[in-house]
């Protein structure tokens, strides 16, 4: 079987057909153009761009990142160019890359989310990922991701106004119980949920007695969080029928397959792209290799294919 005989296509709702299930994770591929010197972005299912807010945000002071065992903590603070510059300067360049474009957005209020989403629909994006799970900004964002009532209201408000792009809701690992948040997203008309965002975490230097991140607390990502992400994807996919997009520590095709077996329809590759800028393409090739090796022609045959009980 050659790559072209394999069917890797997946649908994110009715609106967003992807030719394969591999995307970049927000905040790890810039605004798209930055990765084009390492691989052809059109090979991926979609590009999820750096989170944007209504107005430009400067971000947090350094140190913003520190490495921990098998992972890293970041507190970038959503540094971004703001909606206006994004639409004028970044989006046209990203769209020309030939891959579906998913914008990741964060607002301080439901009204702000709606305003950004409307402008993006007009500018023409294929999907909008609602970031309600960033641990690194004080106002908005995660406040919606941890409180079911405001979470539900937010998605209702955005859904009411947006009909073109697919709406993906990015869940926090701290949303409790995660099934309730995923169900609420589905009931309010979200096309998919993606999870997980980074896990709130900290690191300390025992010699200087100082935190290794200026902001003291940041978000943990990378292989260290994969088992947590797998578990949450597994639970979430059992609770909803809309597609679940798995994120957290994915570096290889086998990692991605594990998420798909746990119930994910698609995956996003984040921190691994820092180690190897072409990681998303290697993940895709790894998935193809696995399918060929196991004689699986259609990726949908693997989704939720976890085998449990006695063998």
């Amino acid at each position, binding site marked *: 079987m050659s790559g072209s005989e394999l069917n890797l296509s997946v649908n994110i709702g009715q609106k967003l057909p992807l030719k394969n299930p591999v995307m970049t994770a927000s905040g790890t591929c810039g605004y798209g153009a*930055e990765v084009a010197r390492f691989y052809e972005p059109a090979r991926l299912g979609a590009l999820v761009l750096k989170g944007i807010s209504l107005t430009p945000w400067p971000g947090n002071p350094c140190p913003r*990142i520190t490495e921990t065992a098998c992972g890293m903590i970041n507190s970038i603070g959503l540094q971004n160019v703001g909606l206006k510059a994004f639409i004028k300067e970044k989006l046209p360049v990203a769209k020309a890359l030939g891959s579906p474009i998913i914008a990741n957005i964060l607002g301080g209020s439901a009204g702000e989310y709606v305003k950004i989403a409307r402008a993006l629909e007009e500018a023409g994006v294929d999907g909008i990922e609602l970031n309600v799970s960033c641990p690194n900004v004080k106002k908005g964002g995660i406040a919606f991701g941890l409180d079911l009532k405001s979470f539900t209201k937010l998605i209702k408000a955005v859904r009411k106004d947006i009909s073109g792009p697919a709406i993906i809701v990015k869940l926090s690992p701290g949303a409790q119980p995660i099934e309730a948040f995923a169900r609420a997203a589905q009931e309010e008309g979200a096309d998919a949920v993606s999870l997980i965002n980074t896990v709130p975490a900290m690191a300390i230097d025992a010699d200087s007695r100082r935190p290794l991140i200026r902001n003291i607390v940041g978000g943990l990502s990378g292989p260290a969080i994969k088992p947590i992400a797998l578990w949450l994807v597994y639970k979430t996919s059992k609770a909803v029928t809309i597609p679940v997009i798995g994120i957290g520590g994915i570096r290889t095709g086998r990692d991605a397959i594990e998420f798909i077996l746990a119930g994910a329809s698609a995956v996003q590759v984040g921190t691994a792209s820092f180690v190897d800028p072409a990681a998303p393409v290697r993940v895709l090739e790894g998935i193809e290799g696995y399918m060929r090796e196991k004689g699986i022609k259609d990726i949908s045959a693997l989704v939720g294919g976890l085998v449990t009980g006695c063998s």
Partner: protein
Amino acid sequence: MPMPGQFFMVGLPGRLDPLLKRPFGLFRHEDGLLSFMYRVRGKGTLIMSGLVPGDTVEILGPLGNHYPLPEGKYRIRKPLLVAGGTGVASLLPLLRELKKNSIFVYGGRNRDELLCIDEVRGLAGEFIAATQDGSEGVRGTAVDVVTDLIRGRDKDGFLLYACGPAGMLKSLQGLGLQGYCAMEENMACGTGVCLGCAVKTSTGYKRACTEGPVFDINEVVFERF
């Protein structure tokens, strides 16, 4: 061709811990061989120091901008290179280009810390070492030496190139010279996508890996102090 001041991300293949590549300035580039000079600081450099010939590392680069040579209106200025500790790794490639048209000030805690001192001494037009214990050159810091050097002289006669600890760079900035400094920030990607390596400047945050590592020294806002 890599230029003086550019860097590479260096990684240990097949490992999850350490996970990320580490940035190192290119120290030498000769006959297709890239050399780096580094100090063992933590986990990654400790493992690197145990590598033996035949072992593999992964590299990504050259990355970032480079030291601008004294051209145009800066042509008539005297390049003043100031290295603190392993900052010499970044400035030696520049010195190899400038050769005798340079003053090199090299500071460290003691003689043992002043790596490659013979090569630097041999290349530079004028060389002054400074150690805190006086075991090499004058007793004091590189900043003390530069302060003495420019006293009573026209500051516009110099073009500063500095690499070393942030404290040193901040003090040098206070001397009011024109010139450049190379900044070290924690880096995850080295390619401009993570925004982890932000350096605060008078025109906002810039990425050390992409808009840097070399900055106009008078543009940098030293945040860690």
